[in-house]
């Protein structure tokens, strides 16, 4: 399953040698070239020094460490492989950094954009703030197909099955009952000519459990595997000893340069973990790379053209310099991310000075004085969702959306996908803001069909400044057929997260940045102008109990029925159909005749 690129340096050299031998004209020529290449590869900065064909793909990796307002620490890894080749033409046969498994998938199934996220846990936006990339609990997959694809549903089915194999996830459970076609929420993130939403498919599996088996294939897609560079930190036993774990793969076409005359393909692999230092450190909130990952950084991935560690040291309150990082960073980067001015300490792993003093890099952060912040910054947009009501007949899905911006109103698109076995009553849909009804300016509702497709509700709602909007819709719980219940039916049934997409007005003005030069975590979502930034937010998944029969009942019924049939029906049938007649004494068989002969001798009457 591992693509050929996922091998350490030695392997790469061997492969390159092979490639050179194939490309060479004659024997002696080849030997000379080989020597040259070997010399080149042994030189400093091998990733950047490659010439010609190899220049066309590049790997940038970075790790963003950000202390969260609650004292937890979020670590976000981003690995970007960019390839200046056109995968769709089908002419590509030689893969270097870009994983072949995914590349061929994109080419074969006409995928234009692919976003897959596997998440264990729930990102608590209210307390942790906005993440660079959010994902719903469970598995999420959304794909834009090329306009050339004729049967999108078939390609979608095939794609989910292949991805299921690649990532060892239950993506093969994606079928028509949990796939929807959103009309407004999911726009292409990369280059796109048109946005005909019939080419889009979106599905969430909230019950999916993410574990090591999903992490290993994800790591194998990295050019250096987990042998060198930032990926050495990706050890499963630490990554899953955390409050939140989310890994994602994003593939999209992007502009090759500013003029945008040609297309490149970008693969972004991201992984976000939140470490809870409260439970492990007895209330001490100092942390280090070693404490988090039980490893330190020792070398760089030789294939990477950029390898950086960013530490968010922006002052949380007015007082500056609350925290202290060591060793001293190579540079300090200032940027406006999601409406906030942020300061990052940057460690460039490729700069030779970093590993000069010590053989390994262990970034440490110390709080100069203990945090006494019971008041936390509240993000501008956050949401909460729950099931109201009790009993097994009806219920109500309530979504609360908070806009805490002091003076700006902004619209938000809400996407709600509800399985068919919760029968939504659309006439009960109410949207209330500040005690008044709030009419959505756009509404798209597709009712469910039993056992075929889920409900899809998309709305564009204006959120007034400093307000809470409550959206409620009532539902009835369906009684399933008894074979349709999953194992553990009394656990309940999941309803996937609803998706909020919004352009949130920022407090600080953003200046235009060169997308190619800015850190990776800022550049997946396009920012339209300086005054607002894009936020996609997921609410909690819901667990709903449906009326569940007593499953020992069929067994009882079968036993009872069989007994009734056997005893009553059997004997009645016997009585009714039997004909009684007096049997004439016959001559009898051999035994009887024999017995009679003996009886005759004894002088008793024959039988």
């Amino acid at each position, binding site marked *: 399953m591992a693509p050929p690129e996922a091998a350490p340096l030695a392997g790469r050299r061997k492969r390159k040698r092979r490639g050179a031998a194939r490309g060479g004209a004659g024997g002696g020529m080849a030997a000379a070239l080989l020597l040259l290449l070997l010399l080149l590869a042994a030189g400093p900065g091998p990733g950047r020094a490659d010439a010609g064909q190899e220049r066309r793909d590049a790997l940038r990796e970075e790790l963003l460490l950000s202390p969260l307002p609650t004292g937890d620490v979020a670590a976000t890894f981003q690995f970007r492989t960019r390839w200046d080749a056109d995968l769709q033409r089908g002419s590509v046969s030689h893969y270097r950094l870009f994983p072949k498994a995914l590349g061929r998938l994109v080419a074969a199934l006409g995928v234009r954009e692919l976003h897959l996220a596997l998440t264990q846990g*729930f990102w608590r936006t209210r307390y942790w703030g906005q993440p660079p990339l959010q994902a719903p609990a469970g598995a999420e997959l959304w794909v834009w197909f090329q306009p050339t694809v004729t049967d999108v549903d078939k390609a979608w089915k095939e794609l989910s099955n292949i991805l299921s194999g690649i990532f060892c996830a239950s993506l093969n459970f994606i079928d028509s009952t949990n796939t929807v076609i959103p009309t407004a929420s999911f726009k292409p993130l990369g280059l796109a000519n048109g946005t005909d939403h019939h080419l889009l498919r979106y599905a969430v599996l909230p019950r999916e459990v993410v574990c090591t088996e999903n992490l290993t294939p994800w790591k194998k897609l990295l050019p250096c595997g987990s042998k060198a560079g930032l990926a050495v930190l990706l050890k499963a036993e630490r990554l899953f000893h955390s409050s939140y774990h989310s890994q994602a793969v994003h593939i999209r076409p992007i502009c090759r340069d500013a003029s945008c005359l040609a297309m490149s393909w970008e693969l972004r692999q991201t992984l976000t973990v939140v470490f809870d230092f409260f439970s492990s450190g007895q209330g001490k909130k100092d942390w280090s790379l070693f404490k988090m990952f039980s490893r330190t950084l020792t070398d760089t991935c030789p294939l990477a053209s950029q390898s950086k560690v960013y530490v968010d040291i922006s002052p949380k309150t007015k007082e500056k310099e609350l925290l202290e990082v060591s060793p001293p960073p190579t540079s300090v980067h200032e940027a406006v991310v999601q409406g906030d001015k942020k300061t990052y300490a940057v460690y460039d792993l490729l700069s030779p000075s970093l590993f000069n003093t010590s053989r390994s890099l262990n970034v440490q952060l110390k709080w100069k004085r203990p945090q006494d912040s019971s008041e936390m910054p509240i993000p501008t947009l956050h949401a909460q969702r729950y099931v109201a009501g009790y009993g097994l007949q009806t219920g109500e899905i309530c979504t609360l959306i908070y806009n805490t911006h002091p003076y700006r109103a902004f619209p938000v698109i809400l996407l709600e996908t509800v399985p068919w076995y919760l029968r939504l009553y659309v006439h009960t849909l109410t949207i209330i803001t500040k005690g008044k009804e709030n009419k959505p300016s756009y509404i798209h509702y597709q009712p469910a069909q039993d056992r075929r497709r889920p409900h899809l509700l998309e709305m564009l709602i204006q959120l007034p400044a400093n307000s809470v909007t409550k959206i409620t819709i009532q539902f009835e719980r369906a009684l399933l057929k008894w074979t349709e219940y999953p194992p553990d039916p009394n656990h309940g049934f999941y309803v996937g997260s609803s998706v909020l997409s919004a352009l949130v007005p920022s407090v600080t003005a953003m200046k235009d940045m060169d997308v190619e030069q800015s850190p990776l975590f800022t550049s997946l979502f396009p920012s339209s102008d300086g005054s607002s930034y894009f936020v996609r937010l997921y609410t909690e998944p819901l667990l709903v109990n449906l009326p569940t029969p007593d499953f020992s009942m069929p067994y009882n019924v079968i036993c009872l029925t069989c007994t009734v049939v056997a005893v009553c029906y059997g004997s009645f049938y016997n009585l009714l159909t039997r004909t009684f007649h007096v049997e004439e004494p016959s001559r009898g068989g051999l035994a009887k005749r024999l017995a009679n002969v003996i009886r005759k001798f004894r002088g008793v009457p024959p039988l």
Partner: protein
Amino acid sequence: MLPLLAPRTYLSENAMGSTMVGEGSDLGPRALALARDFGEHRRREGGIPVSWLSHTMFQLGLEVHSQPFARTLPFPDEAHERYLVRGTNVFGVLRAPRAASTEALLLLVPCCEGGKNEQAVGLLLALAGYCRGQIYWAKDLIFLVTEHDLLGTQAWLEGYHGVNLTAMQSGPFPGRAGAIQAALALELSSDVLTSVDVAVEGLDGQLPNLDLLNLFQSFCHKNGLLCTLQGKLPPPEGPSGPGYAQSLRTLGLMVLGQAGGAPGGPHGLFLRFRIEALTLRGINSFRQHKFDLGALGRTLEGMFRKLNNLLERLHQSYFLYLLPSLARFVSIGSYAPALGLLLLVLALRALELWMRLSRSEEGEGEPPVGEARGGLLYLVPPILISVGAGAALYLLPVRGQAVATQHFPVGEAEAVVLALIGIYVAGMALPHSTHRALSGGGQRGWMTLKLLALLALALLLTCLALLNFSLGFLLGVTLVPPAAAVRPGGNRLPLALLLVLTTPGLSLFMAVLLERELLEAPAGLGEAWQRFLGALGQGLLQEHLHGAHLSPLLCLGAYPCWLLLWNVLFWK
């Protein structure tokens, strides 16, 4: 005989049974220190110290929320001395790592007036601190401290589930944690304990799944706690007279408690929302062997850890059972036939009357003069009057309290209870006055009326038997014999006496006496009367505060049925 009727309890849930958990906490000293702090702050603030609790919970690493609520009672509650109630519930949520807040477990401590439950709050905080350091949680844990015990719990549950069942006013509900799978309520007022009493009966006689009780019992065994049910020690092992008597007393107390329909503790309100719940009460009596809070803390920790392992809601074991002791139960299959046979009496009586009625129709070709007139119209007045009396009994005491307090020198609560008794007794005089106004239907008249009364009673008791077995059983035992026997004419006095003795009101009085007897603290008539008056007031309040069904059932169901029988007795 007993093993057959009341088998030993056993854990049915595999997720809790086979998995062993170790308990490592020693919370005793920490819990006591926190309890002292809490008590100090409460005395200083004169109520629940919201800010101290929030701050402490935040320091422990929980996500803290509070919910203010207010409630005006329909009439003053004399037992708890409250009328306008204002309070705040404080709760902290421990978010389970790598879980999406879809399931939760809950620990509840009601924080009531007068220095009670301080140690329980201390233990709750200590346990929260301990649990925060553990990594194995798969469900969120909610640590809730409610004010004004049941009122606060009701407000919190209504807020959490986004419904408004009673006239509770509460603020916005800030933090949720998905579907609550199980809840434990803790009441504890001393530093050391001799035993732990467990209460199971919930609102309207609902019971939690038997597995939750089994879980508690198994941990009591493991940690060497002495556990009691209904305040009764477990009966001695083996067949013995005293053992049976002890079991019978425990069973009797449970039946009375369940029939009353009042929640046996704060846990009782959870059952409506399908959250399995128990109340644990720490008891400190004059027994020699005492244990500290650490042992109870370990029990709670172990129970939460096992509940944390649950894959599904508790559903494997019995929901309908009676408990003669903590280790034995009577399943519905054993006790339901008894009530079924009782109800069969009513059905057979009704059938007999029906046959007699139809035979007299066929046999006497022409009805006697005076009976043909009006058809069944003569039945309308007694039925209307009985139902009307029931409705008056239900509505007037609470609605008319203002009028009563204006014209009579009584307080609101007294007015309500006295009006209740007055209307009840006045209803018994109705047959005489109605018969004076209307002439009856003769022989066929009373038979038809009795037939109707029997059918109504049978319907009522059958429904009750399904919803609240104990109530149905007690009403059946008292009402079925007179219902079967009652007839006009002849010597009315013994029948009248029997009917009066079995009227629901007097049955309630008898139940009060019997309960004191079973608790081995017999009450005199005067004390019983006081308790009876209190029970009437509380019964009415239960309906308004928690939506209990007992008072409407008795007023609109049992009382009119009884009045119909009373009418039959005095038929002319």
